């Protein structure tokens, strides 16, 4: 459950995926693209070779009409196999997930293993994997040997999760992925947190607030 006190509400969102699928790049691009009311620096805790060692963190926030400060803290996990303990620790207490898959055809096995590890680790740290908001992003669409979109759509057709396509390096699809997660997140918590009732926050207003868009007048 998101952390809540009288004046603020914090969602923890985790970007999960195999090593070097572009998780940190997603955060960096979101930091560039988005302009919410509050936006922190990306805290990058990398080690040599630009590989994430602990996590990266991007904080975002906006104020609801009720005055409630809504904060989102976007984390990445380290993708390398050895860091499974760290992944579990970062995954703990997550409110939503983006699975960043690598579209490269040679990475299909890695994607599959990482997705399975995400499901297993969710169970281990006590997350309800069946119901947690989750968006699957196929990144690196610009690769020459990327698995075709139609093939991916067909394969994921039966799965309950939204699938988005992205080229994070150029920023393509990064915001769309995040928006899909925000909508799933809103729907999951709208009733439990009284977002619409207590805080007069519609889904579109929630998304617009986080992304820093101007909400179209209704």
């Amino acid at each position, binding site marked *: 459950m998101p952390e809540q006190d009288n004046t603020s509400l914090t969602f*923890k969102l985790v970007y999960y995926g195999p090593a070097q699928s572009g998780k940190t790049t997603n955060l960096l691009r979101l930091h560039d693209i988005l302009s919410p009311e509050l*936006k922190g620096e990306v805290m990058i*805790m990398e080690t040599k070779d630009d590989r994430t060692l*602990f996590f990266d963190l991007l*904080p975002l926030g906006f104020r609801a009409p009720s005055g409630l400060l809504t*904060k989102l803290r976007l984390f990445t996990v380290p993708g390398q196999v050895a860091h499974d*303990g*760290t992944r579990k620790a970062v995954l703990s207490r997550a409110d939503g997930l983006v699975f960043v898959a690598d579209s490269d055809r040679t990475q299909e096995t890695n994607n599959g293993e990482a997705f399975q590890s995400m499901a297993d680790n969710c169970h281990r740290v006590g997350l309800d994997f069946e119901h947690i908001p989750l968006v699957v992003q196929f990144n690196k669409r610009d690769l020459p040997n990327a698995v075709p979109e139609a093939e991916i759509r067909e394969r994921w057709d039966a799965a309950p999760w939204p699938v988005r396509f992205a080229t994070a390096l150029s920023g393509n699809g990064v915001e769309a992925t995040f928006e899909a997660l925000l909508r799933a997140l809103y729907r999951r918590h709208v009733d439990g947190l009284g977002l619409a009732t207590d805080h007069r926050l519609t889904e579109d207003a929630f998304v617009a607030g986080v992304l820093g868009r101007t909400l179209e007048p209704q």
Partner: protein
Amino acid sequence: MSTSDFDREWRLGELFDAAMLARIGPPLAELLGADLAILDRDGRALWGMPAPDATREALILELEPAGFLASAAARPPQLRSAARMFTALLRAEARYRMASALHLEAVTQDFETLKLEHSRLLASEARYRKLSEELEARVAAQVATLEARQQMLYQAEKLASVGQLAAGMAHEINNPLGFVSSNLGSFKLYLDKFAALHARLAEGEAAWQSLDLDFVIEDGAELLADCANGLARIGRIVADLKSFSNVDRPPTERANLNACLEHAVSVASSPLPPGVTLKTALHPLPLLACNPGHLNLVFLSLIKNGMQAVQDSGRPGEVSIRSEAAPDGITIRITDTGVGMSPAQQERAFEPFYTTRAIGAGTGLGLSTARNIVLAHRGRIVLDSTPGKGTTVSLFFPGTP
């Protein structure tokens, strides 16, 4: 969310304790050249005494102030610079705190995984040990069963070979039984003739001749002799059968092995298969404490094996049986001029259940059981065979001391 979680938002008072603030407060105030207080995010002073009219500069880690610098006299650009320096320090500290908290969580998780894997290993090894013990026990139990059955088979085989004899012997008895019965029919007629003589006694010699009573008396004597022979033959067959059916008695008798050999020769030679000659060379032997029924079976089996080997060779041949007293016991040799055995056959000849013939078509005891019987008499049995030339089986029984 507990205070050890890496991913909480930090407040200044957690990141810097009083000692640390006391170390960095003075140089910062010195640099600022003005009054300075360091406040937590709720405005509470952690170091210094904030003037009531002090200006506050927020120290922002993520989105919200983690604390404030407060000064009344400082120039605003300088206070902002002090806040930037202080924020850099706060961030470095927060980063260390998150790293160490995450490290602890990660190591704990890895340790849990390791313990799990280790307990799986222990379980696997325990499972391995248990199964291995169970299966070893099963194998051992089966070996015991196998041995028990082997023993039973050994008992049964001895009796079985007697059963095989029974059919042949029954047949042997029928022949003399037939002619003795037939002779008795003749006697009935002869008795009638003497009864007729009684009525014709007055005719004297004429009646005698007329009734052909000279022939009757002469033929009667012959028939009687025939009957006696026939009955003796039946008696001998029955004696043989009895001698062979004593297999369940313990070896307490003192017997002459020559008698056993003669029994065996007698049974083996009725009838003698075509093309096979039996020769015996039996020399005087001391008595041996033994089970004659068992030894009969052994000798009979060896003689029959020899006869079969001759028949298998497809040419006439002989089986010779020789007994001899040695200084320390008795030697018996049964030699045939038959097909002989290949080295491979000789090697396996004493294995239980080894036979070159179909089950049920055996000629008696297996060599394995024969050897068991010989060993039970503290004896030895040796095979010596040349393929195409023949086989000698030598038996040695040590004399009772």
